[in-house]
């Protein structure tokens, strides 16, 4: 192991660098749109499409969906999300913002591709966008909420032991465990970053109901915030061994005038022998030094908030 010693610094630096790719730097949005390579440290395969800071597997037809030993439709393996540029902003965002290039979001209802905010909530989102450089939750290494976890950077691995569907994400080296045994949600008094998810199979579709989120996560980097009243119903429909259709309906009467819906696809990663690396977010994170608003924060001095 001794020969590896000098690599310590590299590992930590790699984690920090990966985060920097994701954490917005003033004027860096354009670069991210073209330059990202994904969490594996190698570029996408030929034909791969660029989505946000990671690549997505090219769309290729697969075989009919198989079954796990306990009879669930088999979605196991490594997946890359195709959700346009939703990871930057979930709404359509034709105009560039500091740190966020123009692009399409993932909202399919309402048809204008925008979140149906109530007026005061729209004001709040607009205000947060101006401060996203240091308020964006992932720059603080918070785990993503739902549905953000479904279009997480670097993609994820799905495993399906009996009675569960697990999503293992490279980002922040974390997991999401969804029981499919018909149990109810936990007490509404317990709020969690990732919320409480329960799943069931509706024919060939995994339906995941998520409540109990703590309102500290965002949908993206652009200030589109959540509250603890959020309720999300996701539908994962494997269409063949290489493709999963994804939909999520988001409701929160406290800030939206109507429920809204996002849609995207998951493509099977061409390398199914890959291994998730350790994205040690907290350990490599320099962002708090640079971006926090409080003591030690340098965002203002650096002019990061100038528009």
């Amino acid at each position, binding site marked *: *192991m001794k020969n590896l010693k000098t690599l310590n610094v590299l590992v930590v630096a790699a984690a920090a660098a990966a985060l920097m790719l994701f954490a917005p730097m003033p004027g860096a949005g354009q670069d991210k749109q073209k330059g990202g390579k994904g969490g594996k440290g190698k570029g996408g395969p030929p034909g791969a499409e660029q989505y946000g800071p990671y690549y997505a597997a090219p769309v290729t037809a697969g075989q009919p969906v198989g079954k796990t030993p306990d009879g669930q439709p088999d979605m196991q393996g490594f997946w890359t999300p195709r959700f346009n540029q939703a990871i930057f902003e979930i709404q359509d965002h034709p105009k560039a913002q500091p740190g966020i290039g123009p692009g399409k979001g993932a909202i399919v209802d309402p048809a204008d591709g925008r979140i149906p905010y109530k007026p005061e909530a729209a004001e709040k989102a607009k205000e947060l966008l101006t401060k996203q450089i240091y308020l964006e939750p992932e720059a603080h290494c918070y785990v993503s909420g739902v549905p953000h976890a479904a279009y997480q950077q670097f993609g994820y691995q799905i495993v399906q032991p009996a009675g569960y569907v697990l999503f293992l994400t490279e980002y922040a080296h974390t997991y999401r465990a969804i029981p499919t045994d018909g149990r109810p949600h*936990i007490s509404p008094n317990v709020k969690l*970053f990732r919320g409480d998810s329960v799943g069931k199979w509706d024919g060939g579709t995994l339906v995941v109901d998520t409540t109990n989120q703590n309102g500290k996560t965002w949908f993206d980097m652009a200030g589109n915030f959540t509250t603890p009243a959020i309720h999300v119903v996701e539908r994962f429909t494997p269409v063949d061994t290489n493709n999963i259709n994804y939909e999520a309906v988001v409701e929160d009467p406290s800030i939206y005038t109507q429920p809204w819906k996002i849609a995207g696809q998951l493509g099977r990663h061409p390398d199914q022998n890959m291994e998730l690396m*350790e994205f040690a977010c907290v350990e490599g994170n320099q962002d708090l030094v640079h971006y926090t608003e409080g003591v030690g924060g340098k965002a203002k001095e650096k002019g990061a908030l100038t528009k």
Partner: protein
Amino acid sequence: MAGQAYKAPRTPEGNPDLQGFWQVMNTAAVNLEDHIATLGMPAGLSVVVDPPDGKIPYTPAAREKQKENYKNRAKADPLNICYIPGVPRAMYLPFPMQIVQTPKYVLIASEFAHTLRMIYMNGTKHPDVALFWIGDSRGHWEGETLVVDVANHLPDTWFDRSGNFHSDALHVVERITRTEPDILTYEATLEDPQVFTRPWTIRMLLYRHKEPDFKLLEYECNAYLEDAEKESQ
């Protein structure tokens, strides 16, 4: 475990089934060695079963370093700044863990900071290019026992709150056996010639959580640390 009578039920692929929610009921997270109580920290007996005196066989210099770590533990314990705990520390924190098994992997998900351990069961070797906070785990079955070889450790993790530590030469071999329906016997042998004079072994029991609909909640350490820092300003 040699001479063991209990035989665990099997997974569909024929391996002992270790799945479920598990947690220790000891104070190894405070100190692996014998320790008296301190404020907020209960007393406990050593979980070191070899050497028989229950003491970690440090070199003299390393013992001095451990004592210094102990003195500075409030600031120096990597867990206090929410770093990934490493192995074996991840296994005896006072937080529940979920073990799940697929034909290729054994996964250990801890409630502490959403920490995920992936144990590869497909005969692959440790990568030679990287060190990890949680190490790199490759396992195989020896009868009833899951044997996990853990290497590629970053040197920055500790074993407990008392400053017990290692270098990047650490090599851990874990042996996990379902010795009763609701008990896993956990054993780990630790070698690190830079810090210890000989290999040593810890052993403890993990108990099954049997509450109905039990599930992992979350302990997002870094978020609470940030809150605490804000409050103290």
